[in-house]
């Protein structure tokens, strides 16, 4: 069928049906000052080559993570991703079936989801894991909603630790605001996570604690878990850097009931902030309340090994009104990348990678904290830590960028302007000795 635009007669007929004379009459409620008159000020059309040149010029104004010494973290981490990862996930068998709408046909995809769950369960020290979620922040929000489901509406409060990533807290707040979940008032700041113990009472459904927290501090979850369990509350442990789990005691061994986090650090690039991949694990006892779906191993009618999506009945597409979550994708391709990367590393490789990250961060912390006026505020950290600077961190970061070093994330950017003197700094295995030396000398100059 040809595309036939409306004739003047068609328009007049429609306007008369709704009872107005002109198109402008439809917009009388919009104030005159807010209405556009004339054409939008756009440049004239250009040739493909000219557009390409223009876009290249624009992108050259940005400093990319891989082009300069780079020390930013705060929830998104730059790691070396082997070329094999990209090659494998782009194989058409995976790429075209990454979200298994007719799951049992996609046995290869299901098998990788099964492997993914196994890896997440092992990393977190938990009994079961689901087949991935959007990202760490939404996984955190889903965990809080799950905890309230477990409490069957008898408890209303969720306690969020001061060191929980502010974006995770914001996502949780947003989801909780639609339900009858009260977020316990929280402050943010380093060195305060132990305070959550005092906020736990009989009305508490869950306590959410991040370790390493957003300031890089490693938190002892065991006493918090003990207090939570004494009040029949669940401990939700959060992490933003999966590589850290290879270096610290897994949250599952410290008494966590639900563990959620961001999987981007393995296999998934920074991607300008997304897509990322959410990890979600819990105890077997809670599996029926877990959002999303689980891939299970079974045998078919002929006795052959096969994989199947189970617990889908808890997802939104079968019994919408009873769904445990409105999640409708599983970041499938990113979780495949996570699994391929982790499989390539293996347990020993991951442990070595974690040790290397920690070593780089220790080296960096030693060197930066000897600069006059700079104070390292962490007692503990993995690959990220917080510095107190004698100047506004935002200005320092800008000055460092002008010298060609991306030197971390000012805490004030995450906390609506609070803690202006704090700077989050991260070093992964990608930071070379030259990068660290460049950072040290640039920061010395900026602060002198």
């Amino acid at each position, binding site marked *: 069928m040809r595309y036939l635009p409306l004739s003047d007669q068609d328009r007049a007929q429609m306007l008369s049906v709704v009872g107005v004379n002109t198109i402008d009459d439809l917009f009388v409620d919009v104030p005159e000052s807010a209405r556009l008159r004339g054409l939008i000020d756009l440049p004239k059309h250009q040739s493909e080559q000219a557009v390409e040149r223009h876009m290249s010029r624009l992108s050259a104004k940005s400093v990319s993570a891989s082009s300069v010494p780079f020390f930013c973290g705060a929830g998104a981490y730059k790691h070396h991703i082997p070329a094999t990862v990209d090659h494998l996930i782009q194989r058409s068998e995976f790429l075209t079936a990454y979200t298994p709408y007719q799951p049992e046909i996609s046995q290869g995809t299901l098998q990788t989801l099964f492997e993914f769950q196994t890896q997440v369960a092992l990393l977190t020290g938990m009994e079961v894991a689901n087949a991935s979620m959007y990202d760490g922040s939404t996984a955190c929000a889903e965990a809080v909603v799950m905890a309230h489901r477990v409490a*069957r509406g008898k408890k209303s409060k969720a306690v969020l630790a001061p060191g929980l990533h502010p974006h995770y807290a914001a996502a949780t707040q947003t989801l909780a605001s639609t339900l009858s979940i009260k977020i316990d008032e929280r402050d943010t700041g380093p060195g305060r996570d132990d305070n959550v113990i005092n906020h736990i009472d009989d009305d508490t459904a869950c306590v959410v604690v991040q370790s390493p927290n957003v300031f890089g501090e490693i938190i002892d979850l065991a006493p918090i878990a003990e207090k939570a369990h004494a009040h029949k509350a669940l401990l939700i442990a959060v992490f933003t850097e999966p590589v850290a789990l290879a270096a610290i005691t897994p949250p599952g061994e410290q008494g966590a009931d639900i563990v959620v986090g961001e999987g981007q650090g393995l296999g998934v690039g920074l991607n300008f902030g997304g897509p990322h991949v959410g990890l979600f694990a819990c105890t077997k006892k809670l599996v*029926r309340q877990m959002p999303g779906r689980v891939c299970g191993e079974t045998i078919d009618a002929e006795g052959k090994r096969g994989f*199947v999506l*189970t617990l*889908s*009945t808890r997802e939104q597409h*079968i*019994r919408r009104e*009873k769904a445990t979550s409105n999640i409708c994708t599983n970041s499938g391709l990113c979780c495949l990348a996570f699994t391929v990367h982790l499989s390539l590393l293996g347990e020993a490789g991951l442990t070595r990678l974690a040790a290397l990250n920690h070593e780089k961060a220790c080296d960096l912390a030693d060197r930066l904290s000897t600069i006059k006026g700079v104070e390292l505020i962490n007692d503990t950290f993995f690959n990220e830590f917080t510095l107190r600077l004698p100047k506004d961190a935002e200005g320092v970061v800008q000055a460092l960028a002008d010298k060609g070093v991306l030197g971390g994330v000012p805490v004030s950017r995450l906390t609506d302007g609070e803690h202006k003197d704090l700077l989050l700094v991260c070093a992964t295995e990608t930071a070379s000795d030259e990068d660290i030396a460049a950072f040290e000398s640039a920061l010395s100059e900026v602060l002198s």
Partner: protein
Amino acid sequence: MSVYFTEDHEWVSVDGDIGTIGISAYAAKALGDVVFVELPDVGAEFDKGDEAAVVELVKAASEVYAPIAGEVTEVNGALEDEPAKVNEDPSGAGWFMKIKVADKDELDGLMNADAYKTYCDGL
């Protein structure tokens, strides 16, 4: 002690004030393998027709409705570990819950075994 059935394939047998509730053999066969049963809390109160439990299968789930009103006095915890009991012995070991019957007159609106058999034959 008589057993009564609903059109939604629940059964209830009453002994004194206590009614035991489960799903019928017809339903258990029609559903296929039960993988999980979600039971109510002891102390929960239901009106006739309220959703009282959920039977979960691999690819579907189905509500179980209270055949008569009452307060839950006991649930069959064994189903937590062995949901297959619902398929193996729906009218015996596969029972779901016991309730304190609120109004015995409600039984009058249910079918006896013969009437239920005729009802199922017609489905």
